[in-house]
């Protein structure tokens, strides 16, 4: 029997980036808030102190800060006609686990989406005509605009102390920034990070080719910073153990370094860690959530009643909990009905590895941070005319030197044997003079009718619940996009003076073993029509109005940027709607 806990105003499922933001906002509004988190509490000093944080084997290779597939995983297949099989060891993405969520071990590349990304369907149809889009592509407008989100992007960047160079302040184009970005209300809170040798070469070559390179907006601090909640971050030391790792310097923006110290001081906030929510409970009408059920690591079952439920468990776990709780109509790709699981997307990433003359180039690849880098945005979104190219979408591309860690980053020229004396010699010769950008080409992935999530008929998790089944493949549009972008990207390395440039195009079929990013999107998307979206424009469930679902699961399709800037802006946007409207009159905020 589950033990029943005293009722709270709000229960938050998952204390990662969005859970922390919402918990703070609602506790700040005076509500009694509890957050329930599947993984352990994590702190800089106790969990990743500099004395041992920099352990490549432990954190990068064995994924110690991540969810273990033994705890739960997903099944995968390319096509609806195939039988999905479980992901036994992580590959294409790496789900977070524990307080702070992905914020603990992300790179902190902190982007905004383009204004046209939010009205994608309308924009593309107006510019190119409806016939230009592939028939099975299911892109949609978001129901929210860039201008509406701008103040919320700004809040997240000032929370994080983002280091960057503005490209557009209130319509004025700023030298050295990204001229394609939407207008921002003010400059970044911190100047860009210092750039190592390779990045400056990349910037110079890109400029000579006529592009407008700019430093990547980074949540790694370029100087000490105190955020509006009074929490302080230290300067980044370019240690090169950032992505996959916790930061021992308090210099990477994360819930731990920006919100949690202020949040845990609020007497009306409680967190429970090592506790996994197994179900969102609804009353007999099916239209009202009554709270959640969870199991802790002692195996004890609990019930937490609450008036408002916030689901912020990360894309795919959000969808899983909706499906298992029977909230919203499950998507059926054959009939093209239902919404939960629909429009699932990832990213279209590729890289170019370049080899320079070791006698002339010393890049010191280990002088690095997760989000440092020089980028160009000429080929993102609809920043260029797609008419002649026959595809839509795009991405930023950049030289982002995230690490010189030797298990991961010892590139050798193509054709080198993979072991033995020749391999060893090539590793030694090229370590200092090869460039393998951490990001490369960061392309969009648009949504399709046959790419979706549902529950697997065969495989179960440790609670004997069905695993989520991923059906996903690359479509021609993305493959064409990637070819075009990768070729453009390679030209820049050529211009930098590389003696050999190796293009690693992204190809179909989608491969679950090859890491791309952990930018899974969609499955519980926002929109203006309950027939094609699970959430309204405030991330409120159409079906259960006292449930809000945060995270990239709300993206109708993925853009050519990292998601978290937009994920966090949407969380603030939803929090604002709850604080200023919902609490006054709890109920559906939109009449559909």
């Amino acid at each position: 029997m589950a033990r029943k806990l005293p009722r709270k105003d709000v229960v938050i499922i998952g204390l990662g980036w969005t859970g922390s933001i919402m918990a703070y906002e609602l506790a700040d509004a005076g509500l009694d808030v509890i957050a329930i988190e599947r993984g352990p509490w994590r702190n800089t000093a106790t969990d990743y102190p500099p004395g041992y944080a920099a352990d490549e084997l432990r954190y990068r290779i064995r994924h110690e800060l991540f969810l273990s597939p033994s705890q739960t995983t997903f099944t995968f297949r390319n096509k609806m006609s195939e039988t999905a099989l479980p992901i036994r060891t992580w590959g294409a993405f790496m789900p977070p686990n524990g307080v702070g969520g992905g914020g603990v071990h992300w790179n902190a590349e902190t982007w905004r989406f383009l204004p046209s990304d939010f009205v994608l369907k309308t924009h593309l149809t107006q510019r190119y005509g409806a016939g230009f889009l592939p028939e099975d592509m299911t892109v949609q407008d978001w129901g929210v605009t860039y201008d509406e989100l701008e103040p919320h992007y700004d809040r997240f960047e000032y929370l994080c102390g983002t280091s960057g160079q503005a490209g557009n302040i209130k319509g004025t184009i700023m030298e050295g920034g990204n001229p394609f970005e939407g207008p921002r209300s003010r400059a970044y809170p911190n100047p860009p990070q210092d750039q190592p040798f390779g990045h400056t070469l990349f910037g110079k070559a890109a400029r000579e080719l006529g592009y407008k390179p700019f430093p990547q907006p980074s949540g790694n601090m370029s100087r000490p910073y105190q955020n509006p909640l009074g929490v302080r971050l230290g300067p980044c030391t370019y240690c090169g153990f950032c992505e996959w790792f916790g930061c021992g310097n308090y210099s990477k923006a994360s819930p731990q370094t920006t919100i949690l110290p202020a949040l845990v001081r609020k007497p009306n906030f409680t967190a429970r860690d090592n506790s996994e929510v197994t179900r969102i409970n609804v009353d007999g009408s099916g239209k009202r959530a009554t709270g959640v059920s969870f199991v802790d690591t002692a195996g004890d079952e609990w019930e937490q009643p609450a008036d408002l439920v916030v689901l912020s468990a990360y894309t795919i776990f959000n969808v899983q909990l909706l499906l298992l709780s029977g909230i919203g109509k499950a998507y059926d790709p054959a009939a093209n009905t239902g919404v939960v699981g629909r429009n699932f997307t990832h990213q279209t990433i590729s890289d170019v590895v370049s080899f320079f003359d070791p006698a002339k180039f010393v890049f010191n690849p280990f002088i690095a941070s997760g989000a440092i880098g020089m980028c160009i945005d000429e080929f993102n979104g609809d920043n260029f005319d797609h008419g002649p190219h026959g595809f839509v979408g795009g991405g930023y591309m950049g030289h982002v030197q995230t690490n010189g860690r030797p298990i991961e980053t010892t590139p050798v020229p193509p054709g080198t044997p993979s072991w033995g004396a020749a391999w060893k010699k090539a590793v030694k010769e090229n370590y200092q003079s090869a460039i393998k950008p951490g990001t490369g080409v960061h392309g969009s992935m648009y949504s399709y009718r046959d790419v979706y999530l549902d529950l697997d008929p065969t495989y179960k998790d440790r609670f004997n619940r069905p695993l989520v089944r991923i059906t996903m493949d690359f479509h021609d549009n993305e493959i064409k996009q990637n070819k075009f972008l990768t070729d453009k990207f390679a030209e820049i390395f050529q211009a930098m003076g590389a003696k050999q440039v190796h293009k690693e195009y992204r190809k179909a079929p989608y491969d679950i073993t090859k890491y791309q990013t952990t930018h899974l999107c969609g499955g519980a998307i926002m929109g203006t029509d309950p027939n094609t979206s699970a959430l309204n424009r405030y991330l409120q469930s159409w079906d259960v109005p006292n449930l809000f679902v945060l995270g990239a699961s709300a993206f109708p399709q993925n853009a050519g940027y990292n998601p978290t800037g937009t994920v966090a802006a949407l969380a603030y946007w939803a929090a604002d709607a709850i604080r200023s409207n919902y609490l006054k009159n709890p109920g559906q905020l939109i009449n559909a």
Partner: protein
Amino acid sequence: MQRRTFLTLAAWFVGTTSLTHATVIHNHVPWAPRPNSPPEMVRPGPWQFFTLDEARAMEAIVDRIIPPDPETPGGKIAGCAVFIDRQLKGPYGSNQNLYTLGPHTHGTKEQGPQSALTHAELYRKALAALDKHCKSTQGGKSFAELDADAQDDVLRKIESGEIKFEAVDAKGFFSALLKDVPEGFFSDPIHGGNIDMVGWKMIGFPGIRYDYRDWVGRHNERYPHPPVSIAGRADWTPAKS
């Protein structure tokens, strides 16, 4: 929840570490003046997973995957076999963190590995098969007793699929070697390989120095300082006189 589910669940929790006790956090940061999960250092000493015969074969193999050269020792001196021995004895060897429930079906390449074998079982079976193969084709000699060229030849044929083993996927074993041996050569010496940081010295990786603020702006200049590992550096401990 049904009793059966609960029992499986309880078994799962027993396998998890003490770090995973559920706690209630209210009005305070759960702060402890000590690290939560300090690294465990591999100690030298007897083999923990390999038998003596297996260890001999492994030392020969790691020295062909990463052969010695005049400047840098090979996999054997670098401790790659010790590294793999300790890894196979631990959670990696038993696939502790992986999803291991069935059914185990062979799928497409894009669906990833589906084998029911643990890493430890893979090595055990493959090393036995390698021994059998060598003894029956090389006049009774084990892999370790062959000369370097003959060893390379056997490895090359496993890599290409020309040599197959009966009970276990020979190519799969070779892929594991291509991952595990360089990991031993390049991971922090606390894990038992990369002894004296030879792998890091070979390429000029400074290890866990953690602060390059003074060097980020010094473009195209070689970083001058020697590497440091999680356990420090040999010359920090005064030599015994």
